[in-house]
C-alpha cells in the first residue's frame, strides 16, 4: 500500500483553480521530484499533503490517515510528515539545539535529556555538531537550511516534504544541502521534493512528476522522463531551465 495517496484533489484560491484533479501515490521509500514552472501548483500540492492548505475536493491519505476527513487530527499527522521550506524559517529566538528540540519537548513531551540527545544526533547528521549552541542569525543560509532539515528529522517522520529548499540559497551553498538529501535518500527516507535542481532530480529521484497549469501533465521514472520527455510542455520546460 502506498504511503501517500492523492485522489482527484482540487484546490482553489478564490476563483483561481490551482490544483485540478490531482492523482498521485507515493510508496514507502520512494523519492518523487516534482518539477514545473512557478504557479503550476507544485508547492500548493506539497502544502496540501500535510494539511497546511485545505482542499475543496478529493481525498488525501497519508500513512493511513485521511487528512481530508472533517475530523482529521492534523497535529498527529504532522508529527509523521516532516516539511522543510524554501526560507528555512528557523526560530530566531532559539539556539540550534532548542530549534531542534522544541517540537520534541512541546508536542512529544520528550524528557529534556533525551531530546538533547536526539538533537545532537540530528545536527551531527547534517554536519553541524559544532553549531549546536549558535543562533540562526550566526549561520549561513546553507547551514540554516541543514538545521531546518535536522529539526524536521528529529520528530522521526515517515515522509519528508521539501519545498524548493535550495532556491533561496547562494549557488555555492546548494551542494551542502543536497548532500544531506543524498544521505537521507541512501537511508531509504520517503521524500517528495519540489525542486529546480534537474540534475539532482535525475540522479536521486526515482520518479519525476511534471506539473503544468494545476495538473500532473507527465510523470515517469526520473531518468527516462527527463532524458526523453513525451510531451511538448515538458520538453519546452526542460529547454528553458537547462539553458
Amino acid at each position, binding site marked *: 500500500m502506498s504511503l501517500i495517496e492523492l485522489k482527484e484533489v482540487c484546490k482553489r484560491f478564490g476563483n483561481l483553480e490551482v490544483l485540478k484533479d490531482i492523482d498521485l501515490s507515493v510508496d514507502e521509500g520512494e523519492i518523487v521530484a516534482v518539477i514545473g514552472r512557478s504557479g503550476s501548483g507544485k508547492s500548493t500540492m506539497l502544502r496540501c499533503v*500535510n494539511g*497546511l492548505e485545505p482542499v475543496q475536493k478529493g481525498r488525501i491519505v497519508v500513512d493511513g490517515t485521511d487528512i481530508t476527513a472533517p475530523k482529521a487530527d*492534523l*497535529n*498527529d499527522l*504532522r*508529527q509523521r*510528515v*516532516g*516539511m522543510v*521550506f524554501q*526560507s528555512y*524559517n528557523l*526560530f*530566531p*529566538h532559539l539556539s540550534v539545539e532548542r530549534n531542534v528540540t*522544541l*517540537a520534541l519537548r*512541546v*508536542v512529544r513531551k520528550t524528557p529534556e535529556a533525551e531530546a538533547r540527545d536526539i538533537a545532537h544526533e540530528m545536527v551531527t547528521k547534517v554536519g553541524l555538531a559544532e553549531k549546536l549552541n549558535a*543562533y540562526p*542569525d550566526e549561520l549561513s543560509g546553507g547551514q540554516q537550511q541543514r538545521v531546518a532539515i535536522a*529539526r*524536521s528529522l528529529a*520528530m522521526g517522520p515517515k515522509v519528508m516534504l521539501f519545498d524548493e529548499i535550495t532556491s533561496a540559497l547562494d549557488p555555492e551553498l546548494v551542494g551542502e544541502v543536497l548532500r544531506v538529501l543524498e544521505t537521507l535518500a541512501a537511508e531509504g527516507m520517503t521524500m517528495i521534493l519540489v525542486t529546480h535542481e534537474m540534475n539532482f532530480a535525475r540522479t536521486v529521484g526515482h520518479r519525476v512528476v511534471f506539473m503544468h497549469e494545476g495538473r500532473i501533465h507527465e510523470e515517469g521514472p526520473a531518468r527516462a522522463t527527463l532524458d526523453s520527455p513525451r510531451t511538448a510542455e515538458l520538453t519546452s520546460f526542460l529547454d528553458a531551465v537547462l539553458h
Partner: protein
Amino acid sequence: MMREFGLNDVYFLLLAARWTIALTLASTLIGGLIALVVAILRTMPFRLANWLAIGYINLVQGTPVLGQLFIFFFGFSAFGLDVGAWTAAVTAFSIYASAFLAEIWRGSLQSVPKPQWETSAALGLRYFEQLRYVVIPQAVRISLPPTVGFLVQLVKNTSLAYVIGFVELTRAGNMLNNATFAPLIVFLTVAAMYFVMCFSLSLTSRKLERSLHVAH
C-alpha cells in the same frame, strides 16, 4: 499659615511618588493580563473573537481616561458599591492600559512572519503552542519599545487620579503648594521626580533590547 519649602517636603513628595509607582505597577500588571487576552482574541482566526476585541479596544480608546476615573469612582457608588479612590484608580487605569497595550501587542503578534506559524504547525504544534513557544517570544522583542513608550505615558497619566482624591505625586505637589505658596520649586521637584521615573524606565528598556535576540 505659610511656611518654607524644605527637605521634609521633598520627603513628603517621595512618599507620594510611591503611590504613583504603585498605581502604575498595578495597572500595568492587571492591564497587561487583560491586554494579553484581548490581543490574542484580536488576532486569532476566529471572527467573533476579533470583533469582541475590536469593540473593547475602540470603546476604551474612544473615551477619556478622566471620564473612566469618574465612572468607576462615582458610578460604582450609585449601585451601592463603595469603592475607595485606590480601587477606582487601579480599575480605571488597568482598563485604560489594557486597551492600548492590546493594540500594541496585536501589532507585534501580527508582525511575526507568517511562515513562523506555518513552520511550527508543520512540526505538530497546536495553535496555542505556536503562540506560546514561537510567536509570543518573538513578538515580545518587537513590542518592547512601544510598550515602554506607553508605560512612560501611563506613569504621567496616573496624575489624573488626583481628581478623585487619590494622593499621588501630583496631588501631593498641589497640597504642598497650598501650604507653601511656592509653586515653582514645588512643581519643579514634582516634574523632576516624574522625569527620574520615566527616564529609568526608558534606560531599562534599552538595556533589555540589547540583551535579547531580536528577530530579523
